[in-house]
């Protein structure tokens, strides 16, 4: 089995209006990985994704799936789209059915699967995205976050080998954004390769195994989150901020509050665990501060620190 499930090899593409959207993109997606593609609006992320499932055809270069070059006859395209599913950014333009159940069954039905299999897949996809309760609701009455989940279930039900999601957390509040990212972690645990595009560096840093940075239609950098976000020059060129977490870590280390030889933490919890507690002189200890813990129940920070 090839190491890379999807490859873009010097892919070129221009839109009819003359915009050179992709200018020789070289990108290889490791099988089974959690990949984030970072870049601002107009960097070419969405255009590249549309090449990955054959909606767009490269003007130059090649796209390979599972080691084989993509062909553009009807049959090969259908095969590719069965294996590579895209969740688009705006759920409103991809939900069209009267009910959530019908909506999710659209893909599997088009694949020509038997009814029983379609039903099984829809149920599973609804369970995975935690929307079973919405089964009979009309799609246009759902909240934005629910619509997002339905649009992910849409693709899950086709059981693709790769799932691509364009800006999954755009316009979600932090809480729901985190839930969606958890969902993609679970999907990835099931063996599916997951590719997300985002301009949220914090999210990319804590979620991804591997990161590509795109700009003006090319890949200008790639690597593990630690590599990418410690490369100041690359971030500067890409016009990206450092993740808040890395920034805070660097500042604290710089202030001498963290040992210099520890690896970068991947989550805030990890970071705060690294910071040693210091008793304020003259007081019996730090003042209690109310923080929300992971589950969302209010708890006294001092207490929960002691519990740990």
């Amino acid at each position, binding site marked *: 089995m090839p190491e890379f499930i999807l490859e873009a090899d010097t892919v070129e593409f221009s839109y*009819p*209006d003359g915009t050179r959207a992709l200018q020789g993109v070289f990108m290889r997606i490791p099988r089974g990985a959690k990949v984030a593609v970072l870049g601002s609006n107009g960097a070419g992320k969405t255009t590249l994704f*549309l090449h990955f*499932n054959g*909606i767009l055809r490269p003007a130059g270069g090649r796209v390979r799936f599972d080691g084989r070059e993509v062909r553009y006859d009807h049959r090969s395209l*259908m095969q590719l*789209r*069965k294996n590579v*599913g*895209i969740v*688009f950014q*705006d759920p*409103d*333009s*991809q939900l*069209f*059915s009267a009910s959530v159940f019908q909506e999710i069954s*659209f*893909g599997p039905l*088009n*694949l*020509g699967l038997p009814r029983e299999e379609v039903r099984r897949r829809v149920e599973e996809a609804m369970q995975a995205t935690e929307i079973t309760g919405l089964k009979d609701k009309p799609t*246009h009455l759902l909240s934005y976050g629910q619509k997002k989940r339905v649009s992910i279930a*849409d*693709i899950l039900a*086709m059981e693709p080998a790769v799932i691509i999601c364009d800006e999954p957390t755009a316009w979600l509040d932090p809480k729901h954004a985190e839930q969606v990212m958890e969902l993609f972690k679970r999907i990835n645990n099931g063996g599916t390769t997951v590719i997300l595009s985002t301009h949220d560096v914090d999210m990319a840093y804590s979620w991804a195994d591997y990161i590509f940075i795109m700009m003006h239609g090319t890949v200008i950098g790639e690597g593990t989150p630690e590599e990418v976000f410690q490369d100041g020059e690359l971030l500067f060129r890409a016009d990206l901020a450092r993740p808040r977490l890395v920034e805070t870590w660097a500042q604290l280390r710089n202030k001498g509050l963290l040992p210099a030889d520890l690896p970068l933490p991947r989550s805030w919890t990890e970071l705060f665990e690294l910071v040693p507690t210091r008793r304020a002189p003259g007081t019996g200890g730090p003042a209690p501060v109310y923080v929300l813990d992971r589950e969302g129940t209010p708890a006294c920070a001092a207490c929960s620190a002691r519990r740990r």
Partner: protein
Amino acid sequence: MFAIDQYAYTSRLRPVHPGEKLAFALVTMVICLASVSPAAPLAVLLIMTGAVLFRAGIPWRFYLKLMTLPLSFLIIGVLTVAVSISTGPPPPLLSGRTLGGITIGFTAASLQLAVLLFVKSLGAVSCLYFLSLTTPMVEVISLLRRFKVPALFVELMSLIYRFIFVIMETAEKMYVAQSSRWGYASIKTAYISLGQLVANLFGKSYHRSQALFTALQSRCYNGDLRVLETPRAPSRSNIMLIAAVDLFLAVLALYTGGGLIARIHP
């Protein structure tokens, strides 16, 4: 989204007063259509093509592609006019066949008419392209407003023009989303997907119209979509040029078209 529209905003003739461009295109088109010989339409085709390629700076490849667009209608239409079918005694055919008492073929007159029709159509099409490739729709609509076309018609035109692009984009997004879920895998799924797409698009258009109404109301909309026009001074030299070219074409049409000639040599 539409190449013609984009060229209209970027062509080198964009700064020219839209009234001058409209007048040039329409007067020239009328001369072309009124002409009864191929000479004037051919001159129109040449002048307009020259203006589009060299004055407006439209790439010739694109213009050529545009010229082939009406060809299928033109060829079929012209052939239909040229061919005569008769069951009676065959007319004086230039070329043709008789099969089982039905004669199909060309007559000299029909062939002549077909050739004239062919060049006249192409000439008129070049006038249309001159207008649409150099004059943004926003300015055409402004002109109509100034010509006292009913306000309702103009307002609807400007709303429709604005929202064509919005709805087109939505439709394209939906189409792409459906295609990536095998929506167009077979003829049957294609019909269902397309029906679903159109029905959704209609629903979205309805909701958008309500949102638009609310937004306009909050800007004190009182029933009229009034907007401020930026006045533009016409250029005297352009008007002279247009008059000269059209005068030349009119004389050419009259002189070769039998009008004048016929009266002198009956």
